[in-house]
């Protein structure tokens, strides 16, 4: 193993790390943490999307929804597989962890209750995933993950396409269909903005950036997301609480509401008149949202039931 100084030099010079033997314990810990967040996010999107995909308006749309879920499971599998190579027990990670210790964005804990909400998730949550993974794909210092993300990016593109095509269709249909789409965007847009975490001025130090596990800061990623989602929504006639300003010749996306602010997860409603602190947000995230336990149970319960029956059958 290289010394800490030699290892830091490898990272700085842009070399790729290829095996556990090359890593310092700190790098290994940070890499595992980043992979767990990625794996958990992809994994939990499967039950979250499934519960809404069941409400697809046609067989073909249902097929597309199911294909997206299959992709998400495969992406989760890539992350967990790498974690296993790094010494973690994949089975324990997925099937034996407490639901609250899963590390996925809070947005997935709020139920998607319709096909409309699913396609907005494809257009907004998958865009968030695309920005985060796109950055890792481009900058990540860990070779096996960087290469594994090649195909992931192409597949995420397909999810975005599903989201955007349907959002456009629903908006064009007008009337109550468009109203439903606007209502979905109203609660899902701010949740996606929150997805990228603490603003840079509150996050003084990022080990992930130092180790080149990612290349962009939280605010840079958030700006990237806003620069794709806001113009698209405006183009299809859907309102979003953000606008573009030009500062020093550069486009900057500004939010039209206090960030962060109060969210009622049961009502799926933001109170833009009620600013809160990031400590309040962290408490909400830690407590998890309405659907956390149910979604984790969707795959954990059957696993243990099957295990038990199988075991009894053998003895």
């Amino acid at each position, binding site marked *: 193993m290289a010394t800490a100084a030699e290892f830091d030099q490898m990272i700085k010079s842009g070399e790729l790390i290829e095996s556990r033997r090359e890593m310092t314990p700190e790098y290994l810990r940070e890499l595992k943490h980043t992979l767990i967040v990625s794996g958990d996010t992809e994994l939990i999107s499967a039950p979250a999307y499934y519960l809404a995909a069941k409400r697809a308006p046609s067989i*073909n*749309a249902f*097929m*597309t929804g*199911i*294909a*997206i879920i299959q992709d998400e499971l495969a992406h989760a599998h890539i992350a967990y597989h790498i974690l296993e190579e790094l010494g973690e027990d994949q089975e324990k990670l997925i099937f034996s962890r407490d639901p609250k210790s899963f590390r996925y964005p809070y947005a997935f804990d709020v139920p998607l209750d319709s096909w409309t909400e699913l396609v907005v998730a494809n257009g907004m949550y998958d865009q968030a995933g695309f920005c985060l993974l796109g950055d890792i794909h481009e900058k990540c210092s860990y070779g096996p993950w960087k290469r594994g993300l*090649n*195909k992931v990016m*192409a*597949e995420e*593109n*397909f999810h975005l*396409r*599903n989201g955007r*095509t349907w959002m456009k269709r629903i908006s064009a249909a007008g009337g109550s269909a468009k109203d439903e789409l606007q209502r979905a965007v109203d609660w899902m847009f701010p949740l996606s903005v929150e997805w990228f975490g603490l603003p840079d001025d509150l996050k003084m130090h990022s080990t992930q950036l130092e180790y080149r596990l990612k290349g962009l800061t939280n605010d840079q990623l958030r700006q990237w997301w806003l620069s794709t989602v806001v113009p698209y929504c405006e183009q299809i006639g859907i309102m979003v609480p953000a606008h573009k300003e030009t500062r020093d010749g550069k486009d900057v996306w500004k939010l039209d509401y206090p960030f962060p602010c109060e969210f009622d997860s049961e009502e799926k409603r933001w109170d833009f008149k009620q600013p809160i602190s990031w400590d309040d947000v962290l408490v909400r995230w830690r407590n998890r949202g309405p659907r956390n336990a149910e979604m984790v149970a969707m795959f954990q319960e059957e696993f243990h039931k099957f295990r038990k029956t199988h075991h009894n059958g053998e003895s």
Partner: protein
Amino acid sequence: MSQRLWTALSEVQDPEMPINLVDLGVIYGIDEHDGVVEVDLTFTAMGCPASDFILEDVRERLLREEGVREVRVKVVWDPPWTSARMTQAGRDALEAWGLAV
């Protein structure tokens, strides 16, 4: 006209892979009479999750061609698609992407 329509469809990408529909070998025939274009098209699998998008893209692209006023797409399953239907350019594109074909 026919050649122009084939060229137009060679600009339509598969939504999931970096390959166009002509190189993928899923366009079986294009016919045109008085501005009405009929396309025979298949999918690589009956459960193709992108079929809706492909049909939409084919229609949308052909309607952009001068002289085309209507597009009728017929989805056909005979003969079934196999990878042997791909062009060499298509094969090269997928191999460059990391898919053995």
